[in-house]
């Protein structure tokens, strides 16, 4: 019990004094997961729209597959990306292994299914009256899409929040393709909040683990508050 209380006190100190080590790791976490989420959004929103409004054989099956991949284990994504970008793998020439870019790629792949799936749900949830109205007013296909998207924007925004949450909280892929490296330059290191928590706990540095954990939760809270604020405007 004492250890936990002591941990929280030390955690508070590390956060209030803006401990450079802790802040660097937190910043790297946000940047990596933010870029991954943005990339995944740029892919999943058009893809989700195409699947939702498209009519093609196997559409139902595809949606089922996407929903199954919601629970894609992070270590499987990590392993897959590792095999692809390792030197002897098909993309080995790019020398991406053990870089933040590799982590961004892995996290993008990881959150794509859930973001695409939720985008489909968001778009299919748009009031049919609006769709009918748009059609009856003679909207072109593009106008139609833009207006439906506009209607579903809050739900899509929530999708982005879910994606970011999954990206920043995963540890399996980050450690496999990132390697948990602490180097002297910011963008060459691959230590993020989750991998650092795992390491510090194993090393018995409980206060630091708690501090990092609190920061991770605070970031998640911040993102959710921002989204809620926009939705309740």
């Amino acid at each position, binding site marked *: 019990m004492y250890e936990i209380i002591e941990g929280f006190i030390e955690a508070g100190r590390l956060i209030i004094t803006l401990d450079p080590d802790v802040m660097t790791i937190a910043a790297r976490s946000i*940047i990596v997961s*933010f*870029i991954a989420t943005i990339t995944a959004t740029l892919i999943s929103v058009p893809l989700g729209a195409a699947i939702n409004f498209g009519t093609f054989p196997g559409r139902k099956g595809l949606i089922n597959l996407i929903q199954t991949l919601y629970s894609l284990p992070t270590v499987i994504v990590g392993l897959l990306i590792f095999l692809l970008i*390792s*030197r*002897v793998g098909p993309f*080995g020439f790019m020398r991406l*292994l*053990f870089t933040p870019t590799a982590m961004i790629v892995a996290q993008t792949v990881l959150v794509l299914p859930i973001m695409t799936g939720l985008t489909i749900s968001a778009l299919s949830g748009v009031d049919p009256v609006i769709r009918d109205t748009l059609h009856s007013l003679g909207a072109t296909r593009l106008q139609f899409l833009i207006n439906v998207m506009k209607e579903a924007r809050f739900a899509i925004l929530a999708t982005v929040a879910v994606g970011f949450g999954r990206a920043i909280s995963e540890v399996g892929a980050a450690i496999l393709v990132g*390697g*948990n*490296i*602490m*180097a*002297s*330059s*910011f*963008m*060459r290191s691959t230590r993020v909040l989750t991998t650092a928590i795992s390491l510090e706990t*194993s*090393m*018995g540095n409980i206060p630091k683990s708690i501090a990092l954990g609190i920061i991770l939760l605070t970031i998640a809270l911040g993102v959710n508050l*921002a989204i809620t*604020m*926009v939705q309740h*405007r």
Partner: protein
Amino acid sequence: MLRRTLFTVAAVMVAFMLICGCIGTTGPETEKQQLRIATTTSLDDTKLLNHLSTIFEEQYNAEVLVVSAGTGIALEYGQRGDVDVLMVHDRVREDVFLADGYGINRRVFAYNYFILAGPESDPAGIKGMKPEEAFATIREKGMAGESGVAFVSRGDASGTHAKEKAIWKGAGFDYATEIQGSGDWYLEAGKGMGETLTMSNEKQAYVLSDIGTYLAYKGDLDLVTLVDEGDILLNVYCAMQINPAKYPDINSEIAKDWVNFMITDEVQEEIASFGVAQYGQPLFYAAQDDWEKIGVPQTEVKDPIP
């Protein structure tokens, strides 16, 4: 209005990231050579590697990127060409690795000893035994279901795990059939040395550890050293380059510098004195003058790679 604010926030973040990206990819840092090292966990957990890489980075204007894993995984990274240098401690597998042509220029830079640690109460009564005898006793008592007798293995194909298997073999047991999965007394952690020690501490079990990691973690552990004498407990650390003939675009110049750096007088002194002030005894011994004692050729400790 709010949307505009959000847009501004997003724009600022993107700009921030671009700036970070630019700082990361341009500027003076691109002139720095990058050295990727895959290391056994003990060198990283004890902070020795961190200490030495700081010195190296200054002298060679390089950036050292360390991936800490067990010797088994480190060898795998090396074989795939994902790193420039390996720092491992398993002579047998190193020899295979070198013979297969994946590694070149092995140099031995440090050694220490493995210890068998366990709870102070020593439920199997192994204190002071020879390693093989102690292992056999733990197994016997563990199989008999004596309460409190358990052994936590690294179970991760690391150098320490290899040493553990060698001791079981020396004690006359077949690892795969008579040890692994032979009972609840034998637990495989599948983790690094530090984590395995922490786990053994929680379970108050016996554990084989290199002395360096054990001393570095001792402050948080209730485990005591029970067996620390026996030739089989010798633990020899080496550094080697990945063969540029296998992977031509590997950073072999800086890799060579690193391996040579490890056997310089300066670094050998650093190794011998590392941790003495903090732990009251060295975590590692310099290999330089003890090559006969640890049974490696003199060229592997003395001769820099030309």
